[in-house]
């Protein structure tokens, strides 16, 4: 018998626990040639803001051992262009599309939540309070539990849709951040965003990235992400979406074992645009081979 991969997270019923991560999957359409979008659980669109954003100067990315650093700076088309040009595509796909968004102020966050709440094609909202690459917005709210509480409260009041908060690993205490978001009414948490890092060009004696620092993603961050998902899962009752260096089905299942209900695949989609779909297939195979009938039975089933 085929294993049951379906999960429910933040009220969203997913055919399987594999989603794509914001910023690594465009607005979905870019990948349609390479992935059967209806074979994955959900996809998360590029982080959106009220006004279009141009992003940071170049160079914006650099490869590092087992990972990559990016300092894109939240370049995006803005909510108006999203509504006009990207939403019609979402209508053609029978897979939940989750819109990731951010603002510069709490009011902007709330306004974005209101605007996205009104778009029927958006199945859920992911609040980005964790981008390390912009001075305003993002990380300011993602490192102080009180700010996180305020911003999530404002978003919560602005939408009845599933509200997911994406957490930053660049904090001393991830659990207090998670608790603040839970107290403010989040339906789920996704973690982790990228880890702030640097790459140096020794010969030129300069940083490689124009932004000096960037966000580290890829297999190199997986151990940190697993630890944080595990810690938060111990402490907070909200469902968790695990993110960080997931390259294959085994990686994804490890996150589920430490307490994630679903996962997001990020950097892997750059290397193999069909990665998320391949991970779904790999999970199904692993479950079947190991006599696990339902993926839900693995959530938090880590033995210590």
């Amino acid at each position: 018998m085929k294993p049951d991969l379906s999960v429910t997270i933040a009220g969203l019923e997913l055919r399987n626990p594999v989603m794509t991560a914001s910023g690594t999957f465009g607005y979905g359409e870019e990948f349609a040639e390479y992935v059967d979008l209806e074979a994955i659980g959900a996809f998360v669109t590029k982080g959106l803001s009220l006004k279009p954003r141009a992003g940071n100067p170049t160079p914006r990315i650099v490869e590092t051992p087992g990972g990559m650093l990016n300092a894109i700076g939240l370049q995006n088309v803005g909510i108006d262009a999203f509504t006009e040009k990207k939403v019609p595509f979402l209508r053609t796909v029978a897979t939940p599309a989750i819109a990731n968004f951010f603002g510069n102020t709490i009011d902007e966050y709330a306004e974005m939540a209101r605007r996205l709440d009104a778009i029927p094609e958006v199945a859920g909202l992911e609040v980005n309070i964790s981008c390390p690459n912009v001075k305003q917005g993002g990380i300011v709210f993602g490192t102080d539990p009180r700010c996180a509480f305020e911003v999530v409260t404002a978003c919560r009041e602005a939408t009845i849709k599933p509200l997911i908060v994406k957490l930053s690993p660049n904090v001393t205490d991830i659990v207090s951040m998670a608790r603040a978001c839970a107290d403010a009414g989040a339906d789920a948490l996704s973690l982790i965003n990228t880890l702030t890092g640097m790459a140096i060009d020794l010969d030129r004696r300069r940083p490689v990235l124009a932004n000096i620092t960037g966000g580290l993603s890829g297999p190199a961050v997986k151990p940190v992400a697993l630890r944080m998902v595990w810690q938060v899962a111990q402490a907070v009752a909200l469902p968790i979406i695990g993110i960080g260096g997931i390259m294959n089905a085994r990686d994804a299942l490890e996150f589920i074992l430490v307490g994630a209900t679903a996962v997001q695949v990020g950097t892997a989609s750059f290397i193999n645009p069909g990665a998320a779909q391949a991970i779904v297939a790999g999970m199904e195979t692993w479950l079947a081979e190991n006599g696990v009938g339902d993926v839900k039975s693995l959530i938090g089933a880590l033995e210590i």
Partner: protein
Amino acid sequence: MQFKSMIISNVEVSPGYWRMRMTAPPELPAAQPGQFVMVRVNEAIDPLLRRPFGIFDVGIHTPAQTGAAPQPYLEMLYRVVGKATSMLSALHETDLLDILGPLGKGFNLGSPEEEKMIVGGGVGLAPLYLLAKELVKQSSVRLFVGGRTRDDILCITEFERLGVECYVATEDGSLGESGLVTEALIRRLAACDGKPRIFACGPHGMLNAVAGIAAQGGIPCQVSLEGYMACGMGACLGCVTPGHRHSGEAPDYRCVCADGPVFDATELKWEA
């Protein structure tokens, strides 16, 4: 398209420069000149990202004396600059590679009455051979190729075989004229009595100079850019380049992979 490709040959054509021929799906010979492929050099996580390579040539490979069926091929011309290209150069016949492509927007070939001027620097020649192959079908084509030394001048014989007139310049004078290739281009443009059109690929300084020459003469000019890219399909937004309206206050970025890699030179921001 994503496909597995088997290496047919991988040879060093000049010190540090390699030419790789590999099998391709039947759709690939329809690739436009100027498009590129993203190659995964191994299955491990180091190097993690794919690397972009211009499509040097496509066609139908007929194996010699084996009786095997003819097969579509793809060729890349690459320079060994780091870990990934070094690993690529160590691969052999029958090794397999994972490839995405053809990606990006290629060259606009223009109209037959124009005199086509192709300008290439070093490994910038990579996307220009397929372009020349198409252009010679309809126009007279001249290639202006430059490099630091003679080792940087690649595949001239192949261009000559197409009927392309080649002008060579090296900075150290070890092959062709001594100096920059743009000087030969300027002389030819002065002597050209028809309508010229320029196509260029190479180091940024060379492209900047060519764009300046074209702008001054009001000559249509397209350039093919390189970019640090993670995905090659417009998702990561890592490879952007400033567009012509770009300023610090009002940034105007274009994606090299999805809006390019070939741009009309007037679309981009060049240094004065």
